[in-house]
């Protein structure tokens, strides 16, 4: 048994010299004589000679496992009624991979029965290829033997997703959803992503946002780098819109909905192909709870250790409850609030909002996250936390802040 991964191209080590050097043309002649170099361009490292796989290698979920099975008669006797069976035992099932299940009438000495099997690997973990051979000797004795080849199927990709909801105002939500998917190559070889698409569920239409129109041509946003190096991650973005018939019934969109699944096709060495789909991606439609805090105004760049102002808007989203809120401000390492923490904001009626101007300063340069706002509903004794509500770029005050 030999696993048939794709062959590889032989690489040579070019060593050249110039005519005036001591060996004269000798080194160059040696390279020309070497059949593994490229005729006419011997300096190129990558030759044209194919070499067979040298070891079992890694196999990844979604790839096709191909294997050569050869039964060779090493003896000097003719054997009869040879039946070769190749089964793949996975964690959950046993598959027969042999092309034919009929017995071969006879096998002469030094002859062989060959079979190439293919199987798309659909499970992760241990697989065992069981090759069973039964035959009858000249003496009429029935013989049987088996060989086992065990291998592990590994996971090739790491996929992470994140949903963004497009906002309109207040508690109502537009129906658009953006899906960001990060796909990471966790194999050890470069991987060419042939296709990454989002197959939406019946409720949505999808628009891929991974290419831009440049001079009439669709150019991918990934530039010329069409492949992922080991451990590289690439982000794909999709915009989903509910189909009309579903959009009207807003109720359906609320709560957990199935968005669709990602279909990923990749290729590696010499076109070795793999394909995977994610499970159905689900999303919790956003609700804003009872109290919503949004930002009305914030500078994008501020000076170090100089106070700046932001304006927040607090909205009571609950249906009928008037709230009594207390604002607390907690300093973080970099962001310091100026003003009194724990002050009463007064009554806030349902569906009404109030604007709040706050002052803060940063003691650390760089991109800083504004965090640490706490609103407490005094009636329910419930605290709402607001962290990472925005970011500001803090620069040294020596540098003039433009605009």
């Amino acid at each position, binding site marked *: 048994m*030999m696993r048939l991964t794709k062959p*590889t*191209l032989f690489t040579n080590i*070019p*060593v050249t010299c*110039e005519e005036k*050097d*001591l060996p004269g043309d000798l*080194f160059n002649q040696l390279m020309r004589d070497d*059949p593994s170099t490229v*005729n006419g361009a011997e300096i*190129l490292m*990558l*030759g*044209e000679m*194919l*070499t067979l796989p040298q*070891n079992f*290698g*890694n196999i990844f*979920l979604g790839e096709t496992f191909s294997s*050569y099975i*050869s039964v*060779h008669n*090493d003896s000097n006797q003719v054997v009869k009624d040879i039946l070769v069976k190749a089964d793949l035992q996975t964690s*959950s099932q046993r598959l027969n991979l042999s092309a034919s299940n009929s017995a071969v009438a006879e096998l002469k000495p030094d002859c062989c029965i060959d079979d*190439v099997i293919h199987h*798309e690997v*659909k499970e992760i*973990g*241990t697989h065992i290829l069981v090759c069973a051979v039964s035959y009858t000797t000249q003496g009429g004795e029935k013989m049987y033997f088996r060989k*086992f*080849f*065990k*291998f*592990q199927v*590994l*996971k090739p990709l790491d996929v992470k*997703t*994140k*949903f963004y909801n497009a906002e309109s105002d207040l508690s109502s939500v537009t129906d658009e959803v953006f899906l*960001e998917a990060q796909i990471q190559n*966790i194999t050890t070889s*470069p*991987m*060419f992503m042939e296709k990454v698409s989002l197959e939406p569920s019946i409720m949505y239409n999808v628009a891929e946002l991974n290419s831009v129109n440049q001079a009439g041509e669709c150019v991918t946003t990934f530039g010329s780098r069409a492949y992922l190096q080991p451990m590289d991650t690439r982000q794909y973005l999709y915009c989903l819109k509910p189909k009309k018939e579903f959009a009207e019934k807003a109720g359906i969109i609320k709560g*957990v909905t199935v968005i669709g699944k990602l*279909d990923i096709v990749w*290729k590696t060495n*010499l*076109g*070795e192909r793999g394909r995977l789909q994610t*499970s*159905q*991606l689900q999303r919790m439609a*956003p609700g804003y*709870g009872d109290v919503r805090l949004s930002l009305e105004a914030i500078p994008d760049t501020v000076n170090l250790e100089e106070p700046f102002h932001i304006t927040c808007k607090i909205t009571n989203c609950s249906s009928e409850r008037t709230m009594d809120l207390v604002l607390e401000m907690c300093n973080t390492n970099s962001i310091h609030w100026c003003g009194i923490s724990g002050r009463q904001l007064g009554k806030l009626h349902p569906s009404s909002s109030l604007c709040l101007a706050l002052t803060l300063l940063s003691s650390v340069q760089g991109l800083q996250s504004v965090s640490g706002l706490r609103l407490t509903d005094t009636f329910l004794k419930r605290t709402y936390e*607001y962290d*990472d509500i*925005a970011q500001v770029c803090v620069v040294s005050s020596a540098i003039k802040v433009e605009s």
Partner: protein
Amino acid sequence: MENAEGADPSSPEWSSPAQGPAESTPPQVPGAGQGQLLYHEETIDLGGDEFGSEENEPVSEDSSHFGDKLNEHLMESVLISDSPSNSEDDAGDPGCLQDVMEPAGGTAGPTLEDVIDKGALDTPSDDVGSDGEDTPRDVSDVTPDSRASLKEDPEQEEVEDLPASESGGAGASGPGAGEAPPGGVAAGACPRQPPPRDEPVPVCTIFSQPQPAGSQPPSLRDGFESQMVKSPSFSGASEAAPRTPPQVVQPSPSLSKFFGDTASTNSLASDFFDSFTTSTFISVSNPNAGSSVPENLSSLAATPGAENSPGSASYSPGMERSESGISTASLEIPQSPKPFSQIQAVFAGSEDPFATALSMSEMDRRNDAWLPGEATRKVLISVATQQYSTVFVDKEDLTMPGLKFDNIQGDAVKDLMLRFLGEKAAAKRQVLSASSVEQSLVGLKQLISCRNWRAAVDLCGRLLTAHGQGYGKSGLPTSHTADSLQLWFVRLALLVKLGLFQNAEMEFEPFGNLDQPDLYYEYYPHVYPGRRGSMVPFSMRILHAELQQYLGNPQESLDRLHRVKAVCSKILANLQQGLAEDGSASSLSQENRQASIQLWRSRLGRVMCSMANCLLLMKDYVLAVDAYRSVIQHHPEQEPQLLSCIGRIFLQIGDIKTAEKYFQDVEKVTQKLDGLQGKIMVLMNRAFLHLGQNNFAEAHRFFTEILRIEPTNAVANNNAAVCLLYLGRLKASLRQLEAMVQQDPRHYLHESVLFNLTTMYELESSRSLQKKQALLEAVASKEGDCFNTQCLKLA
């Protein structure tokens, strides 16, 4: 995140294989690997964990919604259920897959093209041996074999590593001990160690360092001092050892042989140098060589025998001084006789020496031009301007090379024969050794062309020993000639070709960045009057840069190549601005300028190509492709090959479409030139494209078509055979390869072909050993000592 929680509850999971047998294991698998392969049901609570750790979860639910809306930082882990053909609902839970994978994923580092992933390799074979109760006989019969074949690779790898690491660590002793069969050739290794004193040292006339200096009064008007004297035969044993301990302690017995040898071969070495130095020294005939000093010396040179009993007393003060700084004047003087003896030969031989000399100097200038670094340039200027006083150069700025191992001989083929075929068969193996050829350039070329590179390395070593840069001389002051550097280049290039990268690195080390002042002709105004530029062959710079990538430092390779490229570009710019190569004002004839521009363009192209190769090795495919494309501008004649190469790179990545685009470009380019080669290239590319599309039958058809046009095409032959294997026709594939090897063993006994052949033998039968041994015999009769025996997989 909701999703993750939803997906995983209690789905059956295969976690690690070592968890105890599961009831569900089908009975047919006879205890496959006692507890190694087990299926185990496990309920995984994935979601909580995963997100808890990642997310800074807010206390209240509301705020989490808020986070949802604004920028949440977290990405959810999505479970890859399976391949699309599986139904969705059995979506396995991916979370714990991660655990499963870790061991395997971790082992595989970035790999060179052929590197073996041991982690993965082990798995298939590991438990094969332990299972199979039903058929104990058969299985046990079979398994050792299969196991052996599977494990071969790691073993080989070890073998490969061994010499390397040894040599890396311990210096010369490693390779010498490991690879060289003791005795034999080693005895002849150093012809150049005459017993001190009573032996006339004709050798020295060639290099002419020691004798004249010894006889010079220590302080002549021109600063003669005897310190630099360093007869190859003397300094090593008697003076050097006490003063500067050798950098590498060398326990090898060969050292004594080294010094105890007779001088019988001396004359051969001098022949050798004469044979190719003549042209290099012709420029000396320029009249500006006419200082009084050389004239004095010329008489000395004429009678080397009389002069060459340099007392050791006169040496020692010199050596002492050389510790701190070296008088360049003294360096150059001992050498001056040489050109003069050469001149006579030149005058005798050619009718119009003056004209020849002029044209030669044009060529020399063109070839040797180089731009020294700032510090080096200053030293060279001071040498030029203060010819008669002493210029002190820090020892660290001098190049003091020496052999780091004196014998890498060995013949792996013979060793294997001894092991597998017995002594009798091994005795038949005849390869040329360094001793069995003329100790000269002729012999060296002979060794190289009959592929006895190890012996050739050895011979280079002997010739360098004759030059005083032999074993243990590293770190001792010496002087250089164009010839000695050429010898170094050949030796180092062969080491690289042999894959002995660590050895090459060790010996390259004293050369620094190839920019030390004593590597320039200007440093030796008396030896090379009027000659400018670097003695370092351009190819040696390339080699120096490329070596690092084979040692796993491709970044350093790139840095060095960029430096070389910068100088090439600067020289080209100088030429295009009407200056000489080095930027000095000069009136080059149009013809000469064009020739220079052409040379430096091609050198620039060579550097670019090396860069591209290096980037490819780094797997930075985008940059590599860009680099290859820019090479096309420098080597337009290689455009189809380069485009094809780029196409193959894309195939390797898996980007079939782009590969196809490049292959189409090749077809367009080759349409213009109709020739066999273009046609073959097109067919070859089409075949590769079909390979990429998994269509081995079509690929085979195209490879076969090439064979119809050119039946001797080794690549097509080999590749067609490989396709046959993928088509399930092992026997046919073997027949094709065997026929090919038999038909022209000289040409086809190539590493890659043999590798394929042995791989298929292993697949074919558990009795592959015999066939491999037959291959070994074929190799033994055709291949030199540089043959890489690993491809026979006999180890």
